[in-house]
């Protein structure tokens, strides 16, 4: 299940356009994007703010999956389970222990790290498809576990848990949707910075080396077992924090919210955005939130079929995901400029 990923997917292509290097252009694009993101909620309807918040949350969840699959080559179809664990952690803490919402995020992250790490240990022995099945099993098992009677006093069973969205602190003139949006941006920024840092660090290189050639990596002294399990843990941590944010945004958790369909959606977001690309996850998040709605507009009765057709079209057009495609286009423009 190894793929010929270019580990330089992180770097901007070389070349210049209109006198400025591409690197400068991409920096400018990022800054413009950040400005837009910060100003947007003040200009648009609350509902759209809510949707964008969700898209960003999914992007962080996909980032978690990316760390595992894109960077470490371990195939996971089970990230809905970690998202769910994060969400329930936040909900239970807020509902039963009156914990403030911002503390639930590190708690969710920690809980998921532990679960992810523990899951990663035995999963070490499994490769490719077999690992996929094991994670698949986890995703399927999660709703069952959440519904089960022994856990009902905490999870609320099939009825789920209702929680309240926080209001803006310090009396800021923002409504709760807008405040949550900014809070999510802040959290996401931290998570993304962490991911970029990780990718550029020695640890990151070790992780990617394991993906590209585990035997060579271990021959070079990389402790493959440790890194693989750690990556599982970190990946779960990211998705778990996203889950916690998701629970707060939707204000409700129930076992039906975390089925295998979510795992598929995250996976689709990963591939569409670009496996191994950190900025691609943003596109992935936007895709899985908005495209199903678009498909529904096209045809109520065949919404899923339309969605499937769109997926196929996107893959045909961009076999390596959006990030790879954008690089390609930018590279072409640069080349035609010189």
């Amino acid at each position, binding site marked *: 299940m190894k793929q010929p990923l270019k580990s330089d997917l992180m770097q901007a292509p070389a070349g210049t356009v209109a006198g400025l290097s591409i690197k400068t252009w991409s920096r400018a694009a990022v800054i413009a994007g950040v400005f837009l993101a910060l100003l947007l909620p003040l200009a648009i309807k609350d509902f759209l703010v809510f949707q964008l918040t969700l898209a960003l949350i999914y992007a962080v969840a996909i980032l978690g999956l990316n760390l595992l699959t894109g960077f470490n080559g371990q195939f996971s179809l089970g990230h809905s389970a970690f998202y769910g664990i994060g969400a329930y952690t936040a909900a239970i803490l807020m509902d039963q222990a009156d914990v403030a919402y911002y503390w639930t995020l590190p708690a969710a992250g920690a809980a998921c790290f532990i679960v992810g790490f523990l899951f990663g240990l035995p999963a070490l022995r499994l490769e490719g498809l077999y690992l996929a*099945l094991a994670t698949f*099993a986890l995703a*399927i098992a999660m709703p069952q576990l959440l519904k089960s009677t022994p856990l009902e006093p905490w999870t609320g069973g099939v009825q789920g848990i209702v929680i309240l969205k926080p209001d803006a602190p310090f009396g800021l003139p923002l409504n709760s949707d807008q405040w949550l949006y900014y809070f999510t941006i802040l959290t996401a920024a931290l998570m993304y910075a962490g991911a970029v840092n990780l990718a550029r660090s020695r640890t990151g290189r070790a992780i990617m080396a394991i993906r590209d050639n585990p035997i060579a990596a271990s021959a070079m002294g990389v402790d493959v077992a440790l890194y693989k399990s750690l990556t599982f843990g970190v990946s779960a941590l990211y998705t778990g924090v996203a889950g916690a944010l998701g629970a707060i945004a939707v204000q409700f958790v129930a076992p039906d919210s975390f089925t295998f369909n979510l795992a598929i959606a995250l996976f689709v977001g990963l591939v569409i955005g670009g*496996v191994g690309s950190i900025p691609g996850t943003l596109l992935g998040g936007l895709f899985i939130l908005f495209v199903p709605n678009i498909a529904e507009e096209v045809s109520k009765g065949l919404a*899923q079929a339309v969605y*499937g057709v769109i997926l196929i079209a996107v893959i045909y057009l961009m076999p390596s995901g959006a990030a790879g495609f954008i690089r390609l286009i930018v590279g072409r423009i640069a080349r035609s400029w010189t």
Partner: protein
Amino acid sequence: MDLFLHQVLAGVATGSIYACLALAIVMIYQTINHLNFAQGEMAMFSTFIAWQLMQWGAPYWLAFAGTAAFSFAAGITIERVLFRPIHNAPVLSHVVVFIALFAILNSLAGFIWDYNVKSFPTPFGSRSLFGDGLMSSHDAGMMGVTLAMLVLVYVFFRHTRIGLAMRAAAANPQSARLSGIRVGWMIALGWGMAAAIGAVAGVMIAPVVFLDPNMMNSILVYGFAGAVVGGLTSPGGAVLGGFAVGVIENLAGTFIPYVGRELKLTIALFIIVVVLTVKPSGLFGRTVVTRV
């Protein structure tokens, strides 16, 4: 003891459902080295076509044969049209196309035939064998069909030239091409056969679980589980795995106190993961060793 026997036999009966599908899954795996997530939906769609043929008046065996032939052709077409153009794309992109195929088939079936449950006839009747409902004649028939398909698949791979060519194409496409094998068409053939086997599986399964577009969703999970625990490289192992999953699930549900009933699937999957941890390529699979 009576209950135990009952549950084991019931487990064998449901297990034959999983085994049927597991065979199709292994077939595809042998050909392209991935799992086809849309296998269940293809089987479901084929079963609907069989149902429609019978609604239009075709007798059972004609509909059965027609559906198997149609599915074979459809499988080949899907491979050539949908997957050939992206054969150079990374594996994960292929998986997304499987997912897309799943969504399209499910939605289309619901649109054409709606979501109400339909009954589907069985050629084996529903008499009760061994008295007291321990096993129905259809269950026995289904097992027979599964085993027959298994034998055919085995014979095909081991004792025919095309079967050999297919195995070669999957194991080492480069060398196979050099030996004159048309690898592309071998893959398409594999798809066609998997689709046909899936169609037979669907037609066997529908009388028990009733026909509706979501019929195969959960069965697919169990089918995968069975295929993987038996070993994806071993058709016989996959079939055995399917039976095993059925029996384990029923026994867990009945005899593990308190949580057994609610966590049947979890327990079955847990057992599978344990098996895989101990024997990573499945109980009967070949361990593939790659030279570095």
